[in-house]
Every structure is written in C-alpha cells, then in structure tokens.
C-alpha cells in the first residue's frame, strides 16, 4: 500500500508538487502519469525518502520510507538516474547493495540471470547500454524480493522484447499481491500494463481511475464508418443526433450504436463499422493535461 497525503514540495519559488493525495492498493499495477515537469519524479522521490516534503506526508506499507525495517525486502525502486559506479561491474554493484541489505550473493546471480545480464555481469557499468542499465536498475530493485515496487520510467532504453518482458514481470508481481507504481511516457505501453492510473498535472492530481473507467470516459458515444459520412451526418442531424467527423470516413456520434444503426437503415446508408467508442489512455491523458485547459480538476 502506498499513500500520498497532501504532499507539497517547493524548491525555492517553484512549486513542484501541490497538495497531492492518492493511494495505491496492493495487487495492482498503477501508472503514474503526467507531462514533463508535472512533479512525478519529485513525488516518487518523496515517497522513497530522497526528497523532504515541504508539507504533507508519504507512506509505504503504512510507514514513512525511512522508518521501514529491512527496507530492501519491503520496497524496490528504479529511478531515472543511473546509480551504479561506472568503474564497478554490474555484478559488483549488486553485491555492494546485497551486502548492505544483508542479502546473499546467490540472489545477485539469480537476478542477473532474470534480467539477462549474466553475460555482461563482470563488465564495468560504464560500458553498459541504456537498456542494460535499466535491467541492472531493475535487478537492484528486485534484490530483496520486495512487496512494493516504485519504478520511474523503467522501460526507457528497453527493446520491444524487453518491454514485453517487463510488462509480464510487473503483471506477475502484481498477481502475487505486490504493489507496483510506475511512471512512464509511453502511454500505449502503460495502457497494456496497468490496472489503474494516477494522472497529475502541474503538481496536482487531475484524475485517479481504473483503466475500465478511463475507457468508459467516452461511453455513450458510437463510432461509425461509412462510405457516405456526409449523408449519414445529415440523416442523424434530422433525427436530432449530433455527430462529428473523426477521420477516415468515420463519425463520432452522441448516441448509442443501436440508434445509429436504425437511422442508417431507415435511410439506406451502408455501414462498414459500428462500435461503442472507447477512449484511449492517450486521449484521456491529453484532454486532462491540455496546457490550454488551465488547472485540471481535482477529484
């Protein structure tokens, strides 16, 4: 369980996080989204005890991070910055962390195998590619087999196979009842991985919703594709139904698909596609964080 309560962080005159509150339940993968500069990294760092809140508090498993006993077994984290000494091998980097956390070296080798870095384990970290650095970071996060994972852009630099591997890993960890909070800019990837999203903008919460709720944000609309979009639009208008072109001969219609089908049939208009519209995470994200929309509405 992760809880952020009225978190505010100010750096001089810059307000990075503004009275932010949200909670992440165990057994879920939660996406933490926001445009650049929204305050995601500051929030994650506050959660991990790296940044001191100006006000408010953050807890993991019911306690502030610094008060967790055996923290490596409770929380694992990957942050955007590479945190291995460039002159130390990947294996030795993990050995140092394992030693500090009282974890056996056999676990290091096990994780190197898991993240597919065994072949490069004895190479100095400065020679690692971005993807290898991410894998090393993930191995460091998983060292203590933690109950909670906090990941800041973990897919950066991973190839498509790596991204799929990461997705499967996170899903399986959540299925074991662990809590996973991850931030990412790759919304399509996030949409396939998470159960829930927390969207922040300008340091404030604008939406926390399950993926089902996100998709339902366009509920009530139908998407219809026809070779005669202008004629269908006119027929719908005559029936008092509003529609708008959404490209590729398709219309978004403010009515249920059944009603659209009836109007089309009555007017002898051929339809190629008729579905209930589902909002994509990207559409919802962009609508909530539109820079022209001013402050987002808090829940």
């Amino acid at each position, binding site marked *: 369980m992760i809880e952020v309560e009225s978190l505010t962080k100010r750096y001089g005159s810059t307000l990075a996080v503004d009275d932010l509150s949200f909670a992440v339940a165990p057994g879920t993968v939660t996406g933490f989204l926001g445009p650049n500069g929204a305050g995601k990294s500051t929030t994650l760092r506050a959660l991990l*005890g790296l940044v001191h809140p100006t006000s408010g508090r953050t807890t993991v498993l019911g306690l502030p991070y610094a008060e967790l006993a055996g923290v490596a077994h409770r929380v694992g984290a990957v942050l955007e910055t590479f945190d291995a000494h460039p*002159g130390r091998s990947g294996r030795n980097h993990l050995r140092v962390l394992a*030693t500090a956390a009282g974890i056996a070296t056999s676990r290091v080798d096990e994780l190197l195998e898991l993240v597919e870095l065994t072949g490069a384990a004895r190479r100095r970290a400065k020679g690692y590619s971005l993807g290898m650095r991410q894998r090393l970071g993930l191995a460091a996060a998983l060292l203590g087999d933690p109950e909670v994972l906090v990941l800041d852009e973990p897919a950066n630099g991973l190839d498509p196979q790596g991204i799929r591997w990461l997705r499967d890993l996170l899903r399986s960890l959540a299925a074991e009842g662990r809590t996973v909070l991850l931030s990412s800019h790759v919304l399509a990837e996030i949409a396939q991985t998470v159960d829930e999203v927390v969207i922040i903008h300008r340091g404030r919460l604008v939406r926390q919703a399950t993926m089902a709720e996100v998709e339902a944000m366009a509920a009530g609309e139908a998407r219809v594709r026809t070779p005669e979009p202008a004629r269908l639009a006119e027929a719908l208008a005559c029936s008092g139904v509003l529609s708008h072109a959404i490209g590729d001969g398709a219309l978004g219609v403010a009515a249920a698909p059944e009603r659209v089908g009836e109007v089309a049939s009555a007017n002898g208009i051929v339809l190629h596609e008729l579905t209930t519209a589902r909002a994509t995470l990207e559409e919802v994200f962009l609508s909530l964080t539109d820079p022209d929309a001013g402050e987002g509405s808090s829940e």
Partner: protein
Amino acid sequence: MTALVAAELLKFRTTRTAIGVLLAALGLVAVAAAGTVGTAEDNALGTSQLTQDTVSSALFASLVAFIVGILSVTVEWRHGTVTRTFLVTPRRVRILLAKEIWIAIFSAALALLGLLLVLAIAVPWLELRGSSLVLDRDAASLAGRTVLATMLWGALGVGVGAVVQSQTPALVGAILWILLAEVLIGALLGLVDLEGVADYLPGRALSAFDGTIEDEGGLTRAVAGVVGLAWVVGLGALGWLRMSRQDVT
C-alpha cells in the same frame, strides 16, 4: 552496522581506486623510509632519533587515508551512487557512521602496512651498514600514535567529504587548508599574540599528536589527540546535518 561496513569495504575493493591508493601510500612510505635510512650520517646510526625519523615515514599513510576518507563520501555524489545508497539505507546517519568505522579500520590497516614496510626496508638496510633500529618504548609509542593519527586523519576526511560533498573542491580545499590556510591563520594570529590558538586547528592538532610538528609551547600530545578527535566528531556532525536535510534530486 556490520553489513554496512562490509558494503563500504566492498565498494572500495571493487573499483580501481583501491590499487592506486595502496600503491600511492606504500610508495610514499617506501620513498620516505629509504630516504631517511639512505641519507643517515654514520654518527646517527643506532640512535633513537634515527629510529624515530625512520618510523615516522609511515605517517605518509595518513595523507592517503585522509584522501581516501574524502573520496569515500564525495564519490557517491560524483557518480550518483548516493541515490541507491540512500534507498538501501534510508537512515543516513548510519551511512556516515559506517563510512567512519570503515575508514578507521582501513586507516589502521594502512598504517600497520606502512610500519611493516618501513621495517622491511630499514632493518636489512641498516644491517648492511652494521647497525639496527632502536625498538624501544619511544619507538613503540610513535608506532602506536602513527596508527591512531592515521585513523583520525581518515575519519577527518570522511567529515570533510560529508560537509563539502563535491569531489574536486573537497580535495583541493582540504589540501590547501592543511598546507596553506592553517599556516596563514597561524601567522595572522601571531600578529595579535594569539598564535597558540592556531594549535587548535585540525591539521596542526593532528600533526602535534603524531609528532610531525614539535612545538615546545604547543599542545601536549594527549590534548592534541583530543582536539583532533573533536574535529573528527564536529565535522562528522556537520556532515550528518547536511546529509540528513538534503534532497537527492
């Protein structure tokens, strides 16, 4: 705490700095010991003074311990490893304590290695010249103070590193402070008849403790040792204050 100290040792062992540091320390000690024995006048052979001068060569280990102490902290900021260090050990005071304990152990080992090297060079060399070291109580006392002083220098370095954090300013600043600033401060205080106050500066106090500075009107060795320890504790506390309030962004 044992695990954290072991992790600090592993950090040191697993970069190339370790070899360079050991070679530098032993090289300095070897050159100093060889220089002392090799240039000794015949009438100095077999004297207590030559033994003291020769054993003092091991004090070069303290310079290296001081630098390693600084590096043990600043390298964490230089390479960003401090983030992971703080994640694994969120109670930052424990990190600083582990570094202080580790450097004390390392410094003691380095000083002992230096003393053994001095003996390995001086004993056969003096034997060739038909003489030997005078291994009396004074020599044993000096050897003991060499070990303790090296430990204090190393711990002082950790404090400097924790306060300054940025590697180059910490190294350059600390060396300039010891070599220049303390001398200048001493001279300036001398103008207003307060020269004795300069004896309480960290470099002067530790040098008085290890015998590098011998000033009849200065601090006694015991007082100099206590003053040196107070600097170690004071700088360590300042470093902890800085680290504990710091945001790692």
